[in-house]
């Protein structure tokens, strides 16, 4: 994702995994009905919230997402019977883990949004964008880079030493 944001007008990037049968349709409906929500989300369509592997969520953070949103069918409505319950159970444990790793709980969110709830998409997205905006950038790719700076400093010092030793 190119970063068009400058320091001043920074807005968060939010990756959304939406279930094909409900939230994705709702987001579509929101679009068709010209319901306006913050333009910060990149939606990825999945066949069920139960398909959302926690590795996808960590990968999204690691690649630069400031927040990750999962949208699934309401309890009892999952097309694959239990997918959304599995998602909820994973979510509860994953959020505990990511919080321990220093990622604020508000950056990871799970919502049940049915196909007809186009307006709920707006409410949820706007609310999440405002919360994550308050938290500021997570910026893991930049963090990874800055953590590795210490190796560069050291590379110079070995090179100097090696030149010295080889004289």
């Amino acid at each position, binding site marked *: 994702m190119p970063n068009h944001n400058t320091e001043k007008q920074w807005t968060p990037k939010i990756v959304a995994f939406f279930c094909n049968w409900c939230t994705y349709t709702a987001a579509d409906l929101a679009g068709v009905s010209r319901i306006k929500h913050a333009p910060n989300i990149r939606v990825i369509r999945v066949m069920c919230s139960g398909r959302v592997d926690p590795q996808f969520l960590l990968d999204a953070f690691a690649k630069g997402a400031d927040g990750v949103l999962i949208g699934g069918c309401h309890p009892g409505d999952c097309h694959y019977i239990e997918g959304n319950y*599995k998602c909820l159970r994973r979510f509860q444990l994953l959020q505990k883990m990511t919080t321990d*790793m220093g990622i604020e709980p508000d950056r990871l969110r799970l919502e049940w949004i049915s196909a007809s709830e186009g307006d709920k998409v707006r409410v949820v997205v706007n609310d999440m964008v405002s919360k994550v905006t308050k938290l500021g950038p997570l910026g*893991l790719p930049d963090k990874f880079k800055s953590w590795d700076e210490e190796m560069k400093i050291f590379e110079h010092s070995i090179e100097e030493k090696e030149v010295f030793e080889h004289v």
Partner: protein
Amino acid sequence: MSEKPKIALYWCASCGGCEESVVDLAEDILFVVDNVDIVLWPVGLDFKKKDVEAMPDGSIVASLINGAIRTTEQEEMARMLRRKSQVVIAYGACAQLGGIPGLANQFSLETILKFVYEEAPSVVNELKTRPLERFKDNGRTTELPGLWNVVRTLDQVIDVEYYIPGCPPSPKLLKEAVLALLSGHLPPVGTVLAPDIALCEECSKKDTKPTDLKFESFKRTHLWEVDPEKCLLSQGFLCMGPATRSGCGALCVEGNMPCTGCYGPTSRVRDQGAKFLSSISSSIGADSVEDIDKILVGIPDPVGTFYRYGLPGSMLKRKVVL
């Protein structure tokens, strides 16, 4: 004198267990010594860094490096061995994934130093003395390696061709790797030199593992008795067998201790902790947030549980804010 292929063994941030696993080759070590020349092995033989430095680049067939990389000295040695070697093998969980030393990526360097030199219950250090990287005494300067802020896997610092997993690796894997090196029939670069199947496949309890697990609680081994006949996971113990690569012979599980995941993931998994977290949590026997959380109380330390051997090599690598 000899034309035997040269091998170097080196250790970085590790406990010494990997060195032990070399000794555990038992009589096979004679075979190794007959067939290769060990040119560096600080634990066992008296070669110096300058001996290796004097060798031409690429003259070592393989360097087996264990341990994570935490200090400047470790990086320096790793880079030197990289230059001198045709093949570098990350040996053991710490070199491959960060290992137990990698758990330090949950704390800042200052927190660690403060604890170790000032706050640990066994420490008396009224002057709060800490080691200096550079110390002058009588006109002589002594230098100590610097500590980095981040613990890294070996391949985050130098290029690595192969990985031998385990905490520590089994002597069998080491022997097979040496045989492969001698034969010259090497697998594609990046291969983990261990079977690419889950540990459950080689576990004697696997027939009692139900296809449909349901956790009513998670149990910890010091508080509950283990039924030695039954799959540990099915009893509620967090056995990482399903998310861990086989190759150890299911050592812990055969001793009725749950697998803690030291052989790392199979090639189909990128983040072992997330995968295991996913597989066990989806089988929690509750549907509401409150009931799920009640069961999750049994996992008080998810990071330490799921990333016991793999935090630096995981997707997040290190605690985000330190």
